């Protein structure tokens, strides 16, 4: 599969479909890091493991590159979905982007509890079946119990937060300037942990219609907070209520932004368990 990716990357460069290919490079002494390949010869050093999300990097590269610079990106399913969302939100010009889609392995899908471990435009590898996150024991346990029980469980987990902002920084579609999490009205500065309601839930809600379930936030968390369980149930709610999956259809806009009049009955739009993380005096 790797050889096929390289072949495509060389063709993309040789035929000038793009000026550079963003992927991973295995350099001297086997060091692997992101790299922009600009000549077909260089592509020999391209690798596709480990999973290393490149969507946000692609966005910043395109922002600072010269006008008309076209970038190809080696993408997994989640990376492709993230790029689609970034295009939809006018962060990337579609014309300047080419993707080389690769499928994830079954092991990777398992590790990411990913229900769609392949891109829509699959160029290399065979798509493997996804994993239903809600069938995973650890996820079920995190979402189980009544309101107060969940509240206690999650408060205990989230009080580990060291406020590194890694979940936000690594998120491929967290691009707002200014960021709500930097607003002192919501998030008190200078103390840890970050507040459950005003940091973690603002983040979760803010991403409810853009989260592409890539898992970058959880992977970047130094204190192992299972952020995906929080995010996936937000995502699931949009899927159930609107049949909407962020990152899949480039033409369909977020139902939260565009389908307000079709909003379902009150209470349904928010996952019940998220609702339960409110403070007692608000219930």
């Amino acid at each position, binding site marked *: 599969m790797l050889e096929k990716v390289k072949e495509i990357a060389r063709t993309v460069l040789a035929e000038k479909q793009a000026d*550079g290919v963003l992927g991973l490079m295995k350099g001297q*002494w086997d060091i692997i890091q992101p790299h922009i390949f600009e000549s077909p010869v260089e592509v020999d050093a391209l690798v596709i493991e480990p999973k290393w999300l490149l969507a946000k990097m692609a966005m910043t590269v395109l922002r600072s590159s010269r006008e008309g610079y076209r970038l190809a990106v080696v993408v997994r399913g989640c990376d492709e979905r993230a790029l689609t969302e970034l295009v939809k939100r006018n962060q990337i010009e579609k014309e300047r982007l080419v993707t080389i889609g690769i499928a994830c392995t079954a092991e990777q899908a398992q590790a990411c509890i990913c229900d769609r471990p392949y891109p829509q435009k699959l160029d290399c590898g065979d798509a493997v079946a996804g994993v239903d996150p809600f069938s995973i024991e650890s996820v079920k346990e995190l979402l189980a119990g009544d309101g107060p029980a969940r509240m206690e469980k999650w408060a205990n987990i989230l009080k580990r937060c060291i406020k*590194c902002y890694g979940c936000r920084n690594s998120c491929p579609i967290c691009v707002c300037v200014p960021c709500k999490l930097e607003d002192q009205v919501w998030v008190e*500065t200078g103390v840890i942990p970050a507040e459950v309601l005003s940091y973690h839930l603002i983040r979760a809600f803010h991403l409810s219609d853009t989260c592409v379930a890539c898992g970058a936030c959880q992977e970047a968390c130094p204190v192992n907070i299972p952020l995906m369980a929080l995010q996936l149930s937000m995502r699931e709610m949009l899927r159930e209520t609107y049949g909407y999956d962020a990152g899949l259809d480039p033409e369909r806009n977020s139902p939260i932004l565009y389908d307000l009049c079709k909003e379902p009955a009150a209470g349904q739009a928010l996952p019940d368990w998220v609702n339960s993380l409110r403070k007692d005096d608000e219930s």
Partner: protein
Amino acid sequence: MNPDFIKTICPYCGVGCGLVLKVEDGKVVGTYPDKEHPVSRGTLCIKGWSAHQFVHHADRLKTPLVKRGDTFEKISWDDAIALAVEKLQSTAARYGGDAIGGLSSAKCTNEENYLFQKMIRMAFKTNNVDHCARLCHAPTAVGMGQTTGSGAMTNSISDLAGAECILIIGSNAAESHPIIMGEIYKAADRGAAVVVVDPRKTAVAENAQVHLRINPGTDIPLLCGMMRHIIDEGLHNEKFIHDRMEGFDELKTFLRSWPVERAAKECGIAEEEIRRVAEMYARAKDAAAVYCMGITQHACGTANVHAVCDLAMLCGQIGKTFSGVYPLRGQNNVQGACDMGALPNVYPGYQSVSVPAVKEKFEKAWGRELSAKPGLTVTEMIGSAGKDIRALYIMAENPALSDPDVNHVLESLTKLDFLIVQDIFLTETAKFADLVLPAVCFAEKTGTYTNTERRFQLLRKAVEPPGEAKGDFEIICLLANALGLDFPYKHPGEVMEEIAKLVPEYGGIRFDRLEKAGLQWPCPDLKHEGTRFLHDVQFTRGKGLFIVPAYTPPFETPDGEYPYWLSTGRMFAHYHTGTMTRRSAFLSREMEGAYAEMHPEDAIKAGIREGDRIRITSRRGSIVTAARITKRVARGSVFAPFHFTEARANILTNPVLDPISKIPEFKACAARIEKEPHEKHER
């Protein structure tokens, strides 16, 4: 121009996380976590994510500066080196080489530290070289050296995740070593018991199974009470003690004077709690003891370290995976600066300057006569400025903020005949310098750092230095050669080869072997893969040694005039003297100015509200800062981070020293708090 991505190592704490710097048009514009790094594995703390932000700050020093009157003037490198040589040589000629002192730097690379101490020792025939390890883990170097033979973390960071019981004493790892905290949480998620001993209710304590909120400075009573209970219950590891230890009888006899009842009274903890925690630790299959400044920064710091080691050895929790003793080192390369002999009593590899055979070995290798007399420590050099020490060369240290009793430090600095400060910014210390040499930061140099788990790691140069700034490596070579030494080094890798020849434990360290994941010393030869944990078959010193921990309560205790306990430390968004973090936009947004924490009940009594200006006064001086009212501190205690130049916590701290390691008692002194009158604003 497309961006480059350069892998390197974080410049902040001793965890040594992997960074990927994004470089655009010769500027570092972003930091990403390194997914492949053996320690951080794709995660970073807030400081790591912001590591690039100070690199191109407008305040960076760009030319050498000389002080004329009250102001600095630019001079050329040639003139700067000539001036430094003239002043250092004339001082040495007039007062002798022992009148010269050098403060090396835990922020600089191993190679730079090696060259710095080599230059001071060779050029002036003095051992007056030390660095800020004196202010953090000197008791570890001495104390663990005595008990085990090696003053370094026994195990690897990743071992923590596999421990069954983790005892954390005096470490706020959640703020100071966040990536290590993650490993501790991994253990907790697998069912490990996490016990925290700290007078403050830190984030670590909040997330622990048990928090023992001991009275300040009562670590030895607690540990002795635990050990006494372990022996009384027969939970100690007799086989381990018999086969591998010495000094048990002395310890056992001593512990007769520490029944749990006495320990409980002394540290303000219920007897049952002490017994319970002792049993949790002693009964665990694998137990780890993590400690930090709460143990070391006391006038009995070395004895505190002895007590921690005694506990681990009593239970046989050393010399195997998932167990051990974990001193969490502060600076990115404080382990390395110690390893490289930037200490007044040892050459590289902790080889004693007063052992004749060792001195001869280094004299032969370096080709100069060396001094057999141990040199002065940081605190002693500053203390004798203008007397024994006439000229001081400070490389990337900031004693004007970091040392105890800062007012006295500042006064001392003015008494020097000549002060050279080499740094990346005009620090509070540099302002006192006669000559300032502009150096380069982590993103602009190549070399190695050694993290807290003894891992040599490679730094990779990402960008060019600003203006005429030069690497510390190059500056030392320039100066050494001008002082008549032969420092022909062109690349740090050559220096590492020289170090490998002189220190058996680092014999297998070469730059090309560090590229992928670094190497943990001891690594004696080129085939050796490095060492995950120490004291495997036998201790570095042969048998492990129980040392009776000599308890002395804090030197100063609260009284009528100074009714509060004051302790100092760090907070998560800033690092040490703030030279770098306070010039990083995201970090100063998180915490802009100085503050001190006090308990709500104390605040009510004193009529102080959140954010009020308060004056904290000790016998040394006073500072004005903002009150933060929180139950993190105990009643009758106040905590002040030492990052802030506008309210230097170290103006207050007590310079009383641990007699063995010479560390000051940063963690306990007496203070009083008063509300400052409101500033008047005219409309």
